[in-house]
């Protein structure tokens, strides 16, 4: 299987098949990331579409030194961020998914995998956006803390803090120990 750099080089020369391979390789991961960040499937699909169109527009001048996956994940993060901000959906969506008084989630309910995922999504959306970003970009997309720090324009320490608090809060939410903490 050709690596990303070879595929990008071919795409730069107009090879559609290479672009299709890149799309097939990353589309699901990017959709997963966008959905987990936004908790909005429709928005997530729009984001994946826009990120690939934007990638096609800029690939001619792209000088990739790290993995394409990291580059695309960062683009998804930025686009989700923009969408949530500019459409003013951010607040609305969070309010929609954060119960006025969050109920502890019983561990017994985690038995069914589908339900677990749903509970995880609900728990994720209760995290402040920066913490959610740190957790998802690090675990789901494999970005280093340093790369996330550059995206969030904060220090690596701050990202590590956000990651740690995010995980702790998720753990507590899924174990039913923390009620709707809304710190930033």
């Amino acid at each position, binding site marked *: 299987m050709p690596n990303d750099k070879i595929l990008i080089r071919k795409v730069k020369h107009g090879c559609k098949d290479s672009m*299709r391979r890149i799309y097939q390789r990353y589309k699901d991961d990017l959709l997963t990331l966008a959905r987990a960040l936004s908790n909005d*499937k429709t928005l997530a*699909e729009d984001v994946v*579409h826009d990120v690939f169109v934007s990638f096609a527009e800029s690939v001619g*001048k792209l000088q990739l*030194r790290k993995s394409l996956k990291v580059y695309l994940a960062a683009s998804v993060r930025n686009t989700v961020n923009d969408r949530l901000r500019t459409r003013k959906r951010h607040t609305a969506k969070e309010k929609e998914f954060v119960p006025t008084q969050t109920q502890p989630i019983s561990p017994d309910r985690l038995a069914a995998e589908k339900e677990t*995922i749903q509970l995880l999504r609900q728990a994720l959306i209760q995290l402040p956006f920066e913490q959610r970003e740190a957790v998802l970009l690090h675990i789901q997309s494999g970005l280093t803390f340093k790369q996330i720090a550059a995206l969030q324009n904060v220090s690596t320490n701050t990202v*590590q803090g956000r990651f740690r608090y995010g995980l702790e809060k998720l753990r507590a939410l899924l174990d039913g120990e923390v009620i709707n903490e809304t710190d930033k």
Partner: protein
Amino acid sequence: MRQTNKIEQLIDNLHDRTSAELDEKTLKDVFSVMEKSTKTQPALKQSNIWRIIMKNPMTKLAAAAVIIIAVLIGANQFSGSIDGASVAWADVVTQVSRVDYIHVYYFKSRDNDVKCDFEAWYSDGKMVMRGKMGDMIYDDGRVQQAFDQHKRLIGKEQSLFAKGQPFFEVITAGLLSHKNEQFTQQTPANVGDDFLIYDLDPPPDEGDFLANVTITVGKSSLLPVQMKIYQEGSDYDLVLFDYEALQKPKEFFEPPASGTSNGSTEIVLDGPEVVMDLVGAEGIKQAIVRLHGKFDGTVDQIPEDSRYDSKFFPKNYKRKGGPVFKLDATFITDEGYLSQTNEFLILWLGETPQGGVGSAAGGLDNWPDGKYRNIKFYPTLKATDREDVFLLEMRCFLLPKQSNTQ
């Protein structure tokens, strides 16, 4: 309790699949862009970049500055080779080391939005830096002091130039240094009538998220006029230099008075907690502090710890040396609420770092009354004539509202 690694596993197992409709639509649009860009890319890109530059008044000024620089640099002629293609980077470094005044604009382009991040002036071993929020840094070559926009001292530490490094070497993270053997023999990637353009790989420490660095140098003066630092993706930082000393700001070099502390106490290393009364710290009446965890070893011996583990600490420790100490601080508000630091703060003797209370030091609204508060604090640790006893001075204030400026 659920283990953290299980949570990580759960997140890792999140998996969504794109629909056939999305695949079809995306690929159709992507291919359409590819076909279109092959035909029109150069003209479109030029037009977009120009539009972005001209929309931003700061960039307009900076663009003007480049033109001025192109004229001014003729006054400082390089006496060596003027065959641009053969001018090694080492010649530029030599010429830079002779400069005694430098003015810098630092812009950041993020998501096609260009903003001035800071402006700095350097002269005779001293530097003043003004941030976009009006915050200031004064560095006299010995000590660096940071003030917020209200002229409150928010940080004090060893000067960036304390070990005699030239200004350019510091602000280019070592690119402009004779020690940088990676680049000294490098010649320009492009040679124009008036400028040489060097295309350099990023310094090893920054290589994780920087793509490359281009530096434009005046062909006659061999002084840098522009540095462009490309990041992954389309973001970049743009640094513009000029050498016209008339533009020094009134703040050069008159730092504000650093103010007095809100409280001080003697504290014993690895001793009990100490309660400090605070005076004039609106909203906060006391602090409970504990000093522990002295470390004075080599960089290789830095203990494994969440804070020590960051890449910043070893760098700073290598630069400043030990000893360092850990400070835990709990603050008591006027209402009697207690809050703790997220984790210990690392202190060097005589320095004043910034600490914060709340999630990632950004404040919390889960206080007992549900209101938001953020406490910023600035401890200074001083030695006494007893080895295990120190003087701790504390300045702090409470922000009752969320603010992006602190």
